[in-house]
């Protein structure tokens, strides 16, 4: 069949989206629907001294006004972080309590204090404004670098100096020795700017309680409905798992922000039980800016040593990561095991030591956002490499080449064991596609027009296919990170695949079907992918960390193995052949060396009528599998960015962006390239446009699209995406994952290009025209003074 693995199959799911018949959570409306509006703290830090709901309760349409005391009174548990990190002095992390509705204290602007349930959205919102909350305002702490300073406001009592944990990875003594022995040391101070994920669909929840069955149904914008059900049930005690169905229907993008279980889902479920009404909440964009978990927000000092030949001797890193006011679900893992473990990048580094302190501040919780820890690592390594090359007067590509890891498997000093790769190959391919050889001429031509041209590299490696359960368990994860699948051949021979992976833009309904089509040589139309409903799919860990390909597809593949075995046995029995001679071809099941064959409908019918099956065989044709990865997968690649800058205005134009990526086996290159485009788009956003900014008082200053600059079509170029695939030996299909690479590799390439053009390293993200212009001016003043 032509639509198997590697084919650019047009997406099966597109029709419902292009015709407006997609069904997102906010499109769900139940009989007698009630609506929730949250009363949120206007202060970053305050004691709550009283809540007066009497006026609100009397307003038209109001069903109930509920608060945190009632919530905790009903036994609803605190929101938790699911990954326990231990500090280097062996003490556990200091996790502060987070109630879905704040009881005594609010800790960030937007912290929910109460909820109004009313007959209409408008009535709910009007009444929410009429709830009188008295606050005793407290000083706020906002800034990452100074959050631990003496005298800073304290966010949680059990986290003295706002320190959540002080963690390290690597051999400090060996690293210090490597730096001391180096003939050149490059030092850098960098901030990784705080971002707001901004999937275009705002979060939403519709919760319905059935009193007769004591059963709940929750429609929600989730990347992982089963994890949501598990956490809502086991930790928050909203309902036992068998009495809670979670459905994540069409979801309009996630990028990490829809992994977590937020206060609003918990409250809607609980309120539906309290009011005996179906309760719906949909975030406004303003609420999304305040309450969707943010990403990044690191402050780092790093030093890298080189020997006389330009070989790295050691890399030492000190990072402070801001986790906001509360610890969100995966927040602790992001600046530790998803960050420090990738600090070797593509380079042979004899020693690495990384110290990470995480802090509480009176800001929105921070958690995984596209790339999660890996963009922070890549940005740091690649800015250091570029700076080092400039300081040592070396070609930045050659410095990288000199240090590339060439042999695999390769054990880094920071846990990861890279299974395969072709790092020089990615660089070669990117250099050719970017026409690096012609850059000098282009630069000269730009200079003749008064423009500055720059070229910047980055190489990246990420750990995807998250993750081998035992390994992550030993590092503190509260869950296993396998995936499950069920492959169901129907009596008419069509196939349904039930997967625990969730698709919210990734195109699984097409690419997953391609894998099964390829496996059985069936048309892709005969295969339906089912996901996103805990009543249909038995279990699943969901979609994040580019895991759906390497882990989710592997589970499907494993279930297909079992189906194939049974199909062959049935065919062999019916055709009087040996199962070893049976194979799938052209939509049929055939016997080698004969003209005997059966259609899939005949096999399906035989399996379900069970009139004539091999002795002892169970009827039916449906197999399930759980797949636990043996290792991470390691997508890697090289990005090259070329910019042109107007020194008069500081405006940067990306004139060419080239990515050469290794995602292992490509199931559908059309979809893979789309993922890369989107990732680079977000990377450009981080590098040049986006930044969450708080005032010193903890007020969010970038709370709408008027103040937070989203990348628009005219901010971005077209992208040149090349593939240099080395199949992963760690999973049956050889796939590596492609969802995050663009967002990981692109920011340093862009910043390296800009700093190359303007001739100074003193530039932080986002490189807005004003920041770039100021860097140019400061550099001129510095040079004039010298």
């Amino acid at each position, binding site marked *: 069949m032509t639509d198997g693995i590697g084919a650019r199959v047009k*997406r099966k799911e597109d029709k419902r*989206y*292009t*015709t*407006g018949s997609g069904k997102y959570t*906010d499109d769900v409306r139940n009989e007698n629907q009630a609506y929730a509006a949250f009363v949120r703290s206007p202060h970053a830090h305050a004691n709550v001294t009283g809540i007066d709901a009497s006026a609100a309760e009397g307003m038209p349409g109001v069903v109930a006004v509920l608060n945190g005391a009632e919530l905790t009174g009903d036994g609803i548990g605190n929101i938790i972080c699911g990954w326990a990190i231990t500090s280097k002095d062996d003490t556990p992390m200091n996790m502060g309590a987070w109630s879905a509705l704040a009881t005594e204290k609010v800790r960030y602007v937007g912290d929910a204090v109460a909820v109004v349930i009313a007959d209409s959205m408008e009535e709910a919102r009007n009444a929410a404004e009429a709830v009188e909350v008295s606050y005793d305002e407290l000083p706020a702490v906002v800034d990452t670098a100074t959050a631990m300073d003496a005298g800073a406001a304290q966010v949680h009592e059990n986290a003295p100096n706002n320190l959540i944990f002080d963690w390290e990875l690597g051999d400090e003594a060996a690293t210090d020795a490597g730096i001391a022995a180096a003939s050149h040391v490059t030092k850098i101070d960098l901030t990784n700017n705080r971002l707001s994920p901004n999937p275009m669909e705002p979060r939403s929840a519709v919760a319905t309680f059935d009193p007769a069955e004591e059963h709940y149904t929750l429609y929600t914008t989730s990347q992982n409905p089963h994890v949501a059900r598990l956490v809502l049930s086991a930790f928050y005690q909203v309902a036992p798992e068998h009495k809670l169905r979670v459905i994540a229907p069409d979801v309009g993008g996630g990028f990490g922000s829809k992994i977590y279980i937020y206060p609003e889902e918990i409250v809607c479920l609980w309120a539906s039980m309290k009011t005996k009404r179906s309760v719906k909440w949909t975030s406004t964009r303003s609420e999304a800016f305040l309450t969707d978990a943010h990403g990044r927000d690191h402050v780092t000092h790093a030093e890298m040593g080189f020997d006389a030949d330009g070989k790295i001797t050691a890399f030492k890193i000190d990072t402070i990561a801001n986790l906001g006011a509360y610890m969100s679900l995966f927040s602790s893992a992001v600046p530790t095991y998803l960050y420090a473990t990738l600090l070797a990048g593509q380079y042979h580094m004899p020693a690495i030591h990384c110290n990470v302190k995480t802090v509480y501040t009176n800001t929105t919780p921070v958690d995984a956002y596209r790339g999660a820890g890996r963009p922070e690592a890549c940005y740091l390594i690649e800015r250091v490499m570029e700076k080092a090359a400039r300081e040592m007067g070396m070609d930045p590509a050659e410095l990288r080449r000199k240090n590339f890891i060439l042999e695999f498997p390769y054990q880094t000093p920071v846990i990861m064991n890279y299974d395969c790769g072709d790092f020089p190959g990615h660089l070669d391919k990117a250099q050719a596609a970017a026409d690096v050889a012609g850059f000098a001429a282009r630069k000269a031509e730009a200079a003749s027009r008064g423009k500055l041209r720059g070229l910047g590299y980055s190489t990246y490696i990420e750990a995807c296919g998250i993750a081998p359960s035992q390994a992550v368990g030993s590092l503190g994860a509260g869950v296993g990170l396998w995936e499950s699948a069920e492959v169901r051949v129907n009596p008419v021979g069509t196939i349904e695949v039930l997967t625990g992976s969730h698709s919210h*833009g990734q*195109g699984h309904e097409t690419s997953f079907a391609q894998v099964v089509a390829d496996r059985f040589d069936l048309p892709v139309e005969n295969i339906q992918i089912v996901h996103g409903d805990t009543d249909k799919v038995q279990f699943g860990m969901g979609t994040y960390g580019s895991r759906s390909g390497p882990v989710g597809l592997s589970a499907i593949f494993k279930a297909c193995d079992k189906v194939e075995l049974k199909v062959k046995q049935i065919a062999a029995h019916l055709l009087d052949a040996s199962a070893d001679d049976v194979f799938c071809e052209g939509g049929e099941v055939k016997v080698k060396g004969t003209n005997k064959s059966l259609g899939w409908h005949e096999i399906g019918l035989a399996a379900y009528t069970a009139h004539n099956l091999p002795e002892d065989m169970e009827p039916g044709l449906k197999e399930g599998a759980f797949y636990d990865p043996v290792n991470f997968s390691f997508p890697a690649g090289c990005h090259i960015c070329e910019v042109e800058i107007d020194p008069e205005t500081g405006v940067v134009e990306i004139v060419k962006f080239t990515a050469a990526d290794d995602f292992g086996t490509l199931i559908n290159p059309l979809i893979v390239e789309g993922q890369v485009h989107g990732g680079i788009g977000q990377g450009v956003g981080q590098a040049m446009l986006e930044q969450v900014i708080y005032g010193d008082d903890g007020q969010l200053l970038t709370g709408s699209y008027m103040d937070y600059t989203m990348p628009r079509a005219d901010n971005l170029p077209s992208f040149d995406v090349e593939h240099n695939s080395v199949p992963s030996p760690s999973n049956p299909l050889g796939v590596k994952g492609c969802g995050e690479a663009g967002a990981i590799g692109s920011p340093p390439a862009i910043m390296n290009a800009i700093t190359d053009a303007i001739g100074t390293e003193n530039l932080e993200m986002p490189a807005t025209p004003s920041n770039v212009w100021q860097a140019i001016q400061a550099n001129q003043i510095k040079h004039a003074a010298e």
Partner: protein
Amino acid sequence: MSKISLTVNGRSISKEVSDNTLLVEFIRENLRLTGTHVGCDTSQCGACTVHVDGKSIKSCTMLAVEADGSQITTIEGIANGELHPMQQAFNDNHGLQCGFCTPGMIMAGIDMVNRYKASNKPLDEAAIRGELEGNICRCTGYHNIVRSIADASTKM
């Protein structure tokens, strides 16, 4: 409350609406045409784009009562037996991922192509990018949206 009469996707409709109901709320909640989306509260994202009397409009910037007497077309109303060339082009060029911005992109794209054709101006990549200023997509990096609109413009 006011009574409004208008045509939506070719159907005549008369309904009572409150004076502060936005056109997008009327479309989504009263008519239950949920293909038109809401992505922001500051008229920046374009997820709510529909055609009012043939022109693309952000339906969150207009009150339902202001649409009295007008002809509205939403994403549900553009396929005529088969997909509109713009819808087909988005599928052909992988111009969508999560699909949330897509109805707005398609409605804006159709209007854009119509305007450029009417004034005989070339709709090149730079023009498409400039014209998409009012529509945000977080998934695609716009690369394939631009290609989709360019492709459709040769088929409309």
